[in-house]
């Protein structure tokens, strides 16, 4: 009995570790590559242990940049990506919580129509509407600006839907108790709906921050200046077509750095997430 139990524990663990190895190994290799010099990597002499140039490579990546292709240092790209991801995440949460609040708590004509229109846009990802969106952003003179990067990606059916589902679980009596307690719709939103939504907001923030951080096609289209490019675009530009010219150690260092903010967001938000779950549980 005990034997079988132990075997039963070992097998899933084994599977789990194999899975982790498959996912983590390329990431580890990228890290290793970021600690050698370009020639060692190009000659295929790189080992499995980290090399000696960790500090030097990361210093160059963050503050100096590559010598060819894009010369922007990672610092600027990180900032651009961060502003964009933050803007998208915060903007999406703000817009979708408000529209969900309107749809759930206000009775107005064509309420459900509005809801369905929002719902239908779920089926239209950025890529589908990319040409008209580009045209509008260009006409507004928003190319190479943060607003141009952020605003078109803010409207969010997913967020609205998520908040709507959550609001539907708030008992009607709570709304009524608020009314009797003299809280109008704004106060009810601020004092009751917002605090209760923290968990949902944290979840949405994590998802949308990563979504914003990983944007590729849209920033590629609307940013032309190096100073406005995001880190994802930066990495792409560092990898030039002639393999020998690519400063692999810097590209890899940049890639490793690019992974850190999303990881940080997940870790930070996870705490809030769990805290929120515990605190608002009815």
């Amino acid at each position, binding site marked *: 009995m005990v034997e079988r139990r132990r075997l039963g524990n070992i097998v899933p663990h084994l599977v789990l570790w194999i899975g982790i190895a498959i996912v983590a190994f390329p990431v580890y290799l990228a890290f290793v590559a970021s600690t050698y010099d370009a020639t060692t990597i190009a000659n295929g002499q790189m080992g499995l242990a980290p090399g000696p140039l960790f500090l030097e490579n990361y210093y160059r990546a963050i503050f100096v940049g590559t010598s060819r292709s894009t010369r922007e240092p990672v610092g600027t790209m990180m900032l651009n990506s961060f502003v964009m991801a933050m803007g998208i995440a915060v903007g999406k949460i703000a817009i979708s919580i408000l529209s969900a609040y309107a749809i759930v708590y206000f009775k107005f004509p064509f309420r459900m129509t509005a809801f369905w229109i929002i719902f239908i846009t779920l089926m239209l990802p950025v890529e589908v509407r990319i040409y008209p969106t580009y045209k509008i952003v260009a006409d507004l003179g928003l190319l190479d600006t943060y607003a141009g990067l952020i605003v078109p990606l803010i409207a969010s059916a997913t967020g609205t839907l998520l908040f709507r589902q959550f609001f539907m679980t708030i008992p009607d009596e709570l709304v*009524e108790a608020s*009314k009797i307690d003299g809280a109008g719709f704004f106060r009810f939103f601020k004092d009751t709906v917002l605090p*209760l939504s923290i968990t949902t907001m944290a979840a949405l923030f994590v998802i949308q921050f990563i979504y914003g951080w990983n944007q590729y096609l849209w920033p590629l289209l609307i940013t032309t200046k190096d100073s406005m490019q995001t880190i994802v675009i930066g990495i792409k530009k560092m990898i030039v077509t002639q393999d020998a010219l690519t400063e692999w150690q810097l590209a890899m260092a940049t890639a490793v750095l690019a992974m850190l903010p999303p990881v940080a967001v997940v870790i930070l938000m996870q705490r809030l997430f769990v805290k929120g779950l515990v605190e608002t549980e009815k």
Partner: protein
Amino acid sequence: MASVTLESVRKVYAGNVEAVKGVSLDIADGSFCVLVGPSGCGKSTLLRMIAGLETITAGKIRIGDRIVNDIEPAERDIAMVFQNYALYPHMNVYDNMAYGLRNRGTPKPEIDKRVREAARILAIEPFLDRKPRQLSGGQRQRVAMGRAIVRKPQVFLFDEPLSNLDAKLRVQMRVEIKRLQRALGVTSVYVTHDQVEAMTLSDKLVVMNHGVIEQIGTPSDVYRRPQTRFVATFIGSPPMNIMEGIVEGPNLVSVGGSLLPVADMRADLKADTRIHVGIRPEDVRVVEDGGTAFRIDVDFIEELGATQLFHGKIAGDEFVLQAPTGLIAASARQLALTVDATNVHLFDRETGQRLGQVDP
């Protein structure tokens, strides 16, 4: 404090559902009025119209001498206790009670004084810092009451506030609500489907069915002289026995061939009219086989501890008799019964209206 007056109040929901069909009611200042009726009879709707949570389709509602039809809930000077308590889950007990006062701009020291006072009255002082989820059902119920008390409203409104509690706590809280209402003297309207709650709490009992008031009266009025067959069977447990009967003459009916004298009987009832005869299970006595006795055949006995219920039949109609345990031999197969003329109730077979003298 204030009285509450309803004048031909109606409520029609979307889809032409008429939930309240013209209700008029006077609730005296400081009294405890209970609306009781089966689920779906419109009692919550009526209460919510008084609270201002539902619009009033027609009619007038007055609180004190103000017509409140178009006044916001917060301006009506009422407080409401909900069945599921409706406490703010993210606020602690103190804030739950203080919230309404803060919204009205009550000064801080005053809020603090009132909240602590209410907490003391309700014995929830040790929990002021807790969140609702850290409280038991009974404690949550107290917090909900506290939230109502601190507002010092003109009227308390309760919508089945005890339904989510277990039986023992329900009895305990029932007594407390009554005591509190007495002490504060605030006009209260209390909705319940539980007739025991209704009987024990009310100064004025309002029995509703299908959106109309069936009877208004003191609990003993309603119990002693039910005005309709519905009230007769709804109030009282076990419910009143209803049997087929025939008018034999002035103040005399027959049930299953036995004659029963009736004290309260309309004078114009013609002999041979078929009617419904109601007798409460606790109003019959077993007698040695005598002249005026009527008989039931016992099917089975239910033990309630202090009393026993004898289930039987009389001329095809179900009949239940309640008697103190041991008074009647459990082996009895047939019982001869008698009932006081004052405890026989007559009802119209079609309309269910009481066929008694117009005013006793």
